[in-house]
């Protein structure tokens, strides 16, 4: 602790809540309140109703939620696979090649995601690479966007991994694939699950690249939220947003449970 005296500590805590609550928590709470509200004339929404949830349950919101979850799951798995593979391969490269690879994987983060969406649209709208108008192009865009995070967290975890484990295993007669499967990946598991959670959450909330690419039969939930608020249906948008938040949180909770089981150190 940087602060020792009790009053000072209390002051710091107060300051934290004064800053944190209005900026981080309150807007989310207002969204939750709005999703249950019947009217919103004052500063805060008022009245209680489940009508909005009933409405979205009847519409194609469930479909959109499923689309979002499927997209996020596929993109996370693909990103994790590609990111881990690349990080493992980068470990064996020379310093210069490695830096180049790092930069390459950082590119989708550095470039605005609208640009990523546009570039994919341009690149894959002609045969033989005709993905335009398919769910695959949305999933590809999400994968491209989140692989950077998977690559970076696995690279960081690999740098912390004591090479003595790998060497001991090799010394005991284990082939590289066996070492990877039985020693390295299990030891990396906590970082892998953390990366998976991050990828999933990012993909669930992705809007700008998706807007450029989504076909009518593959509408992720953020697009619906945007459409609902755009046409003025604030309550419906709020209910959809709560559904998105709840689903993402549930999946993250599940992933974090895997992590606690797998952290050995």
């Amino acid at each position, binding site marked *: 602790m940087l602060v020792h005296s009790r009053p000072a500590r209390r002051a710091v805590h107060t300051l934290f809540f004064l800053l944190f609550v209005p900026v981080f928590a309150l807007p989310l709470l207002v969204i939750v309140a709005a999703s249950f509200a019947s009217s919103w004339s004052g500063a805060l929404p008022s009245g209680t109703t489940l009508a909005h949830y009933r409405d979205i349950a009847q519409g194609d919101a469930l479909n959109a939620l499923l689309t979002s979850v499927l997209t996020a799951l596929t993109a996370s798995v693909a990103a994790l696979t590609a990111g881990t593979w690349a990080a493992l391969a980068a470990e064996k490269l020379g310093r210069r090649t490695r830096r180049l690879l790092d930069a390459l994987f950082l590119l989708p983060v550095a470039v605005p995601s609208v640009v990523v969406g546009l570039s994919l649209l341009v690149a894959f709208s002609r045969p033989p690479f005709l993905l335009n108008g398919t769910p695959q192009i949305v999933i590809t865009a999400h994968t491209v966007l989140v692989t950077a995070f998977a690559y970076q967290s696995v690279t960081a975890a690999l740098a912390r991994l004591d090479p003595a484990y790998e*060497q*001991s295993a*090799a010394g*005991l*007669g*284990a082939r590289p694939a066996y070492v990877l499967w039985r020693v390295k990946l*299990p030891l990396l598991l906590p970082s892998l699950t953390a990366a998976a959670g991050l990828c999933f959450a990012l993909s669930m909330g992705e809007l700008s690249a998706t807007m450029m690419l989504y076909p009518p039969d593959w509408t992720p939930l953020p697009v619906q939220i945007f459409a609902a608020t755009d046409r003025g249906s604030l309550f419906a948008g709020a209910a959809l947003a709560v559904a998105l938040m709840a689903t993402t949180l549930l999946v993250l909770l599940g992933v974090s449970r895997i992590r606690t089981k797998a952290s050995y150190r």
Partner: protein
Amino acid sequence: MTAPAAAAPARAVAPSAKAPASGIRFDHVSVAYGKRGEHTVLDSFDLTVEPGEVMALLGPSGSGKTTALRAVAGFVRPASGRVLIGGRDVTGLPPYKRGIGMVVQQYALFPHMKVAENVAFGLKAQKTPRAEIPGRVAEALEMTGMAAYAGRHPRELSGGQQQRVAIARALAIRPGVLLLDEPLSALDAQLRSGMLAELARLHRELPEVSILYVTHDQIEALTLADRIAVLDKARLRDCGTPQQLYRRPRTEFTASFVGTANLLPVTVRRGGGGNGNGDGAGDGVDFAGRRLTVPVGDGVAEGATATLCVRPHLIGLGQSPQVDGNTLRGRITEVQWRGSTHRLYVAVDGHRVLADVRELRETPALGDEVTLHFAPEDAVLIPAGLAESPTGLAESPAVLAESPAGLAADGAPDA
């Protein structure tokens, strides 16, 4: 060593090691780092570890001893030279094809596996028949006294217990060669001496396993090794049995690194005052204007400068009881009480001489004038050319002639 090594390959690769026991041989192994290999960490290293022998690689940090061990394990690739295990050239083989057991300083037990799974790891990796594995694991754990801990995770064990598990894991695959990289350095002093005894017992139970033991601790090397290879600055400086290196060191470096030594600058006097017929009688050295009687080997010329090595515990206080004993007079500059002994620092004509004597009833005072004595046979003369030679052994074939069979350049076991 340099010249005859050229003829070595043909003999070494010949099936000299039909037995399951396998020795290790370094054949002119050089390891270098850096873009153009400008940092040499092991320079033209030649050494043979006989099957079943315990060889300690002893040296200060940065001497290249760990690099030598890693070259056997396959974690560093020699820039030149060859590494042979059991007569087989393994220089180009990946670690997992070398059939070695290895224990590293920090044990590196796999934290996500229980003790039994750790020990079974090598067996599973090498596709040992499933039915055999539990028996082999139990056997290895029994041997290291860890059978009761099979179901625990490594994090639940103490340092000494983890060490035993690491040894059990290495032994379970029944390697011909066991590589130990400073295995005791992470343990406290008391545990260390206990583990030394354990390792000695293990080697008695597994007499066919060759052990390469890297350490910077001379006590570990003296206790455990059949032979010790002394390394310094990327080169092999000396090699011999612990007794040879301790009692008859061939270089100043060995003398001071293996045990404590008084190294006195002397001038050789051949047959001075004696009969001069070459039988060595009357040979001696001049030290600070005083004639000392010490054995002078052949090939040391009259008037040559040399270094006289006398171990502190072989120096006594007072007049010599022997007729031909040597005496030195000096002033005490420092006294250390070490329990069972007193260490006296004595200035003899400006040279510091250490003497470890049995605990004295009365501690001598600083500045006291004292007489020290040592027997001629307890002193070893180190010729200057060898002591100061930057390349050590490699340029001194005369010294190599005395070395044990294992150091012979052909490297083939005598059998």
